[in-house]
């Protein structure tokens, strides 16, 4: 008996572990068909866009490495130097022994980059949302969030205990309606949206959302995790691109996409930001970011700010792949962006398609409901400034070869 089958048979009804049964069943199904999109191991990383997977050279089109800076020579050198100078970890929270001058320097770098008063670093982007939202939204407060917000945003709201209301995805009119219903409570409501939504690759109508926010005097938090480095003249994100940064109270972001590392931050012009440090359990009770990571991020932040050429290449590749897929008959879920999502009807169809694409030599993400906003499985592609036109042509050829599978999935769904 396989370990999964054994685990499944050991899950007795009414036991503590009974709630894990649906997960065990889903894993069993994946084992039976021999496809595991959630446990793919990269055996070797050759470059920001290539890896060895299952012994095979593979083009990576699902890494969120938008600017391709993970092997930047200057960032590597800074990380190596700091690793030797300051060690492998801080072994403590920022509130205790884990605050190095280097952390404060990166905070000042982010504040200067955004042209705001201050910044707080967090150990991951997930913790940045947890830390900021749990501190802003306590039990007597209300948070109004876009329905498609990331799980870290929902979890941050839950940690703080605020009342949570959703508005329809990217719909400022629905946001307006929700705030109107709150009456006098709207003035202290916290609105939370993202810049670029990570699943479908669609961009928030942020200028319109800011206009609604200003009508009610609410507070606006924007998560630019996937838009940092991609949108705006200097890469500050969608708020910069839509020229509405003054209407954003708190901007949250991550090092783990365009900055090529792991960590999170929040910047704000508001002086209350510094107080959030002392009210944020995910800040207080987590070891601070690793020094070598802070050092490499200081370098990649500079490269990001000066990375107009990187953004130009990223969007050229996004346009190439988006138009190429359309020409083949695929239907991307949103307009051109560095995230391209394609709905595939039926779990088995999606699993098979993803697996055939990997076997052909391209790795992308597979996302299954309920993690998808559309309710259908989706193939999620993310591009990098480090991709070249030949790699995108090669990926398009793989999609061309697999088109009959896609067409069959569409046909079986409409039958």
């Amino acid at each position, binding site marked *: 008996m396989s370990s999964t089958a054994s685990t499944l048979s050991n899950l007795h009804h009414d036991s503590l572990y009974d709630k894990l049964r649906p997960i065990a069943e889903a894993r069993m199904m994946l084992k039976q068909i021999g496809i595991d999109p959630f446990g793919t191991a990269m055996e070797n990383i050759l470059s920001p866009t290539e890896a060895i997977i299952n012994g095979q050279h593979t083009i990576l089109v699902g890494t969120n490495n938008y600017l391709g800076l993970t092997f930047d020579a200057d960032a590597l050198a800074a990380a190596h130097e700091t690793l030797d100078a300051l060690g492998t970890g801080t072994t403590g929270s920022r509130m205790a022994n884990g605050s190095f001058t280097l952390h404060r320097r990166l905070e000042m770098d982010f504040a200067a980059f955004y042209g705001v008063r201050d910044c707080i670093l967090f150990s991951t982007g997930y913790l940045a949302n947890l830390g900021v939202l749990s501190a802003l939204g306590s039990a007597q407060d*209300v948070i109004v969030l876009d329905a498609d917000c990331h799980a870290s945003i929902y979890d941050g709201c839950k940690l703080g205990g605020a009342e949570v209301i959703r508005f329809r995805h990217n719909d400022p009119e629905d946001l307006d309606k929700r705030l109107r219903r709150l009456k006098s409570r709207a003035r202290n409501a916290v609105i939370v949206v993202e810049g670029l939504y990570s699943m479908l690759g669609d961009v928030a109508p942020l200028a319109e959302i800011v206009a609604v926010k200003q009508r009610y005097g609410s507070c606006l938090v924007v998560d630019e995790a996937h838009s940092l480095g991609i949108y705006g003249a200097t890469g500050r994100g969608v708020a910069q691109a839509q020229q509405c940064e003054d209407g954003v109270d708190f901007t949250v972001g991550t090092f783990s996409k365009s900055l090529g590392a792991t960590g999170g931050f929040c910047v704000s012009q508001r002086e209350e930001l510094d107080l959030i440090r002392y009210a944020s359990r995910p800040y207080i009770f987590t070891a601070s970011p690793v020094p070598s990571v802070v050092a490499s991020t200081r370098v990649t932040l500079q490269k990001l700010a000066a990375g107009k050429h990187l953004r130009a290449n990223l969007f050229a590749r996004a346009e190439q792949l988006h138009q190429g897929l359309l020409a083949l008959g695929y239907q991307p879920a949103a307009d051109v962006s560095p995230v391209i999502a394609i709905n595939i009807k039926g779990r088995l169809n999606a699993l098979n398609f993803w697996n055939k694409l990997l076997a052909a030599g391209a790795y992308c993400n597979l996302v299954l409901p309920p993690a998808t906003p559309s309710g259908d499985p989706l193939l999620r592609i993310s591009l990098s400034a480090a991709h070249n036109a030949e790699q995108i042509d090669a990926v398009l050829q793989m999609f061309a070869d697999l088109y009959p599978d896609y067409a069959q999935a569409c046909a079986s769904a409409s039958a």
Partner: protein
Amino acid sequence: MPTPSRESLLENIIAQLKQIKPDAGSLSADTDLVSDLGLDSVQVLEMCTDLEDDLDLSIPVNRLGEVRTAGQLADLLQQLLNEAD
């Protein structure tokens, strides 16, 4: 506008559930949204968005945590409508 009765709220909920699960058979106040109908969290929230429009109210996500059945959802809606008055 008078507050709808629990019965009419329940009828509305059952109508929404039948749209999501046309083959579900007979539905009642005791129908469990997850264990009987197999709805996932996103489907429950999407259904709530439609109910919110019909009733011109917002359902706090954190108050949905204790809702298991169609009848419990009707009770929550009635409570929220009374609070809004």
